[in-house]
């Protein structure tokens, strides 16, 4: 009965195929919506799947939730003169993607420390801790021992691959730190940030762990010989320099740039360890690096975080962009025939959101997409797996019924209208908004999102009729007044291209990212 039903339905569908195709009217078949979508399936059927990669590049947009991707994609298109919705950020054209659950072991809504540890070590852990498992007690140095995880960067080093870590945040900040450090607290960026008991207990600050990476790894695994992280670039000079004005860099903005209270100059220590390495602190130094011959690079381009992309021109000594750092890193790392693992973080998308300033969050996301494109252009898709993801989301929404092509940073203008829609309070409203945070501010042409922090929270509805909400200094309205807008707990996305990319699919836990890297590079194979 059952098999006969199948047979019958097969015959019926064979007969119907040509007839059914004819059912489609021309208006449907000739629609570019129709044919373009059909082509997507054709392309997917033609996809080939290689499992093993020579190189892996992991991109992390800090705080880059799905709504951030959608809004940034529209902004990118509108900056190019299009309506925006139809476009894609570079990595959104990658053939594979997955939906990623971000919670930490002890937190529904996570932070970057716990999430990056999961991605780079394969193990979910607690909020606020770096490179250690959930048995850690945050802030307690004594609980670190025995709970240290091994990161993919360490495994790649042991395997003889070249490694790189790039961020627009401080290079000691949670996301980059999780690639090379073990710490009971993400804030132990230098020795002055640690309680005395932690220093006495033998815990090492994060900046020091970066400089001592090679030595520490060889001590943990006697008999191995690694050559250290080839490329580390980002901000955070303050954690590498002594608290002494004599060590100030050319573009110090504090009276005393360094924070270290142990009198160590880690940039000098790094240079002494890697005598042929290059330490750079500005754009000129960065540009002067010859990627074909450089073996080791430490770039610290800001006292703290690097500038927002929109504010980058305001840096005194000049900073490279994320895409420039990415290209340079690849050019250096690909000198190794064994391959490389590169981790690139856009660290300040998160900060733009925390400030309730969509402008900077989105412009940094657009630059992040450029960096991914630069990586795709500089690598062979047959041998390089590129993974693009976020660590967590933000309480950022795209709301109302704006018409197609309406400026994404603008006020809602409905379909068929040229005037901003009015809410029931009689006032216009923006498409983009935050559930919580500092709320409305109109700082006009101010491109530094953090300028808001001088002002008390200003939640609730404001009359923005006369305000240019597309200006860099506009901060979106919010409902719940908090001094800082918060992370959100919903899933984020993972986009993949290259050997092993086809394994990125479905809804996965965040620690699966490590296993994607491991599978492609065979880090643990004998």
């Amino acid at each position, binding site marked *: 009965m059952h098999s006969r039903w199948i047979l019958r339905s097969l015959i019926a569908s064979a007969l119907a195929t040509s007839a059914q195709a004819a059912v489609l009217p021309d208006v449907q078949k000739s629609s570019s919506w129709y044919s373009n979508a059909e082509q997507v399936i054709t392309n997917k059927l033609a996809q080939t799947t290689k499992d093993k990669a020579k190189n892996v590049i992991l991109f992390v947009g800090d705080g880059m939730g799905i709504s951030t991707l959608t809004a940034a994609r529209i902004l990118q298109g509108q900056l190019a003169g299009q309506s925006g919705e139809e476009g894609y950020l570079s990595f959104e054209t990658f053939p594979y993607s997955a939906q990623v659950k971000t919670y930490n072991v002890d937190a529904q809504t996570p*932070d*970057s420390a716990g999430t990056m540890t999961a991605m780079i070590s394969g193990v979910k852990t607690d*909020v*606020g801790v770096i490179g250690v498992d959930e048995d850690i007690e*945050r*802030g307690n140095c004594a609980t670190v021992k025995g709970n240290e995880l091994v990161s993919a960067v360490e495994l790649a080093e042991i395997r003889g691959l070249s490694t790189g870590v790039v961020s627009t945040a401080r290079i000691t900040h*949670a996301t980059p730190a999780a690639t090379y450090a073990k710490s009971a*607290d*993400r*804030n132990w960026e230098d020795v*002055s*940030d*640690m*309680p*005395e*008991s932690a220093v006495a207990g033998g815990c090492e600050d994060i900046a020091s762990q970066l400089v001592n990476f090679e030595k520490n790894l060889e001590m943990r695994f006697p008999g191995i010989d690694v050559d250290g992280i080839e490329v580390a670039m980002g901000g955070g000079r303050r954690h590498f320099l002594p608290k002494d004005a004599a060590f100030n860099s050319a*573009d*110090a*903005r*504090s*009276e*005393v740039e360094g924070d270290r209270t142990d009198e160590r100059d880690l940039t000098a220590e790094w240079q002494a360890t890697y005598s042929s390495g290059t330490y750079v602190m500005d754009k000129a130094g960065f540009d002067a690096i010859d990627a074909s011959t450089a073996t080791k690079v430490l770039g610290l381009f800001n006292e*703290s*975080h690097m500038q927002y992309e929109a504010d980058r021109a*305001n840096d*005194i000594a000049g900073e490279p962009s994320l895409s420039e750092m990415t290209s340079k890193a690849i050019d250096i790392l690909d000198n190794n025939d064994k391959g490389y693992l590169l981790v690139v973080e856009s660290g*300040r998308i*998160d*900060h733009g959101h*925390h*400030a309730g300033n969509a402008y900077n969050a989105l412009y940094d996301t657009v630059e992040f997409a450029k960096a991914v494109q630069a990586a795709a252009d500089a690598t062979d898709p047959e041998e390089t797996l590129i993974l693009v993801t976020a660590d967590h989301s933000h309480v950022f929404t795209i709301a109302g019924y704006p018409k197609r092509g309406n400026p994404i940073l603008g006020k809602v203008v409905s379909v068929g209208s040229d005037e901003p829609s009015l809410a029931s309070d009689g006032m216009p409203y923006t498409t983009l908004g935050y559930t919580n945070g*500092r709320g409305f501010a109109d700082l006009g042409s*101010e491109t*530094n999102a*953090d*300028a808001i*922090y*001088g*002002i*008390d*929270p200003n939640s609730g509805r404001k009359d923005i009729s006369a305000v240019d909400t597309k200006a860099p200094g506009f901060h979106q309205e919010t409902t719940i*007044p*908090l*001094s*800082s*807008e*918060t*992370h959100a707990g919903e899933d984020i996305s993972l986009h993949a291209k290259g050997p092993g990319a086809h394994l990125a699919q479905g809804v996965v836990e965040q620690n699966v990212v490590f296993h994607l890297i491991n599978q492609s590079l065979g880090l643990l194979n004998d």
Partner: protein
Amino acid sequence: MRPPSSMMKMTKSVSFILLLTSLPALVLAGEDDKTDSGLQSCNADYLVAHFEQSFGDSNAYAKHHAAAHAFHGEAHSNHNTQESAQELVLVRKGQRVAHYNPKHQIANIWYLSKHNQQQLTRVFEQYQQGIEYQSDELKTPSQWHYVRSLIKQDLLTSMSLEQTSEQGCQQVKHYALETATHEYQLKWLSAVELPQELVVTNKDNGQTNRLQLTKLENDQVVAKQAAHQQFAKWDALPTTDYADVGDNENNPFLAKMINQGFSGATNQSGHHHH
């Protein structure tokens, strides 16, 4: 940023008056005496100035100072007449200037870098912690002028000199300005570039706001030592970048800031924001 456990070990801050009366009369060795005022003998670079501010006309005060306050992030700028008088202590040490509110135990500390960037750190003595703001480029010179001298440069230059009394370091220049809505009377200590008194009268309702210098210490030795000690005390406190506040919900002080903002952070000291 240090975690709370190490904060406990830090010494409680000494009150400002105590500090000033218990100074050893020593000059720090090796300090350079840079000055940009050209009036070195009058010492405008190291000083401690106590002011009393009274806000009879809170709206006018807010209006005339809103821009500067918003830019510099001055807390408690929009108080109404419920809190009509405040003490303000201004401390100068070369390119660093602090505005200290003794009642709230909050200091706003600015540093003007050689690149004309202003770095602002706000210290909460009660919590033994500071918040550091990313430097802004100096958009207009009058902003730094306000930080250093409590009056915006463009306001000062728009006023007309009516008379000059005293001489040398004691010189007082009397300025006045009348606009459509307000009258300004300024007694300006030109050698130290500080108001001795600034009175702003609202012509509509006759209400006045007053900034009155109550005590000035600018002795070469004593003021320099006092400024050094006070800044050193503030500098010893752990600070957090404001950009990082949102990621520090586990730190009780920063969590309070995340949840309630600056105003909430001062509630325990009995101050109620409205």
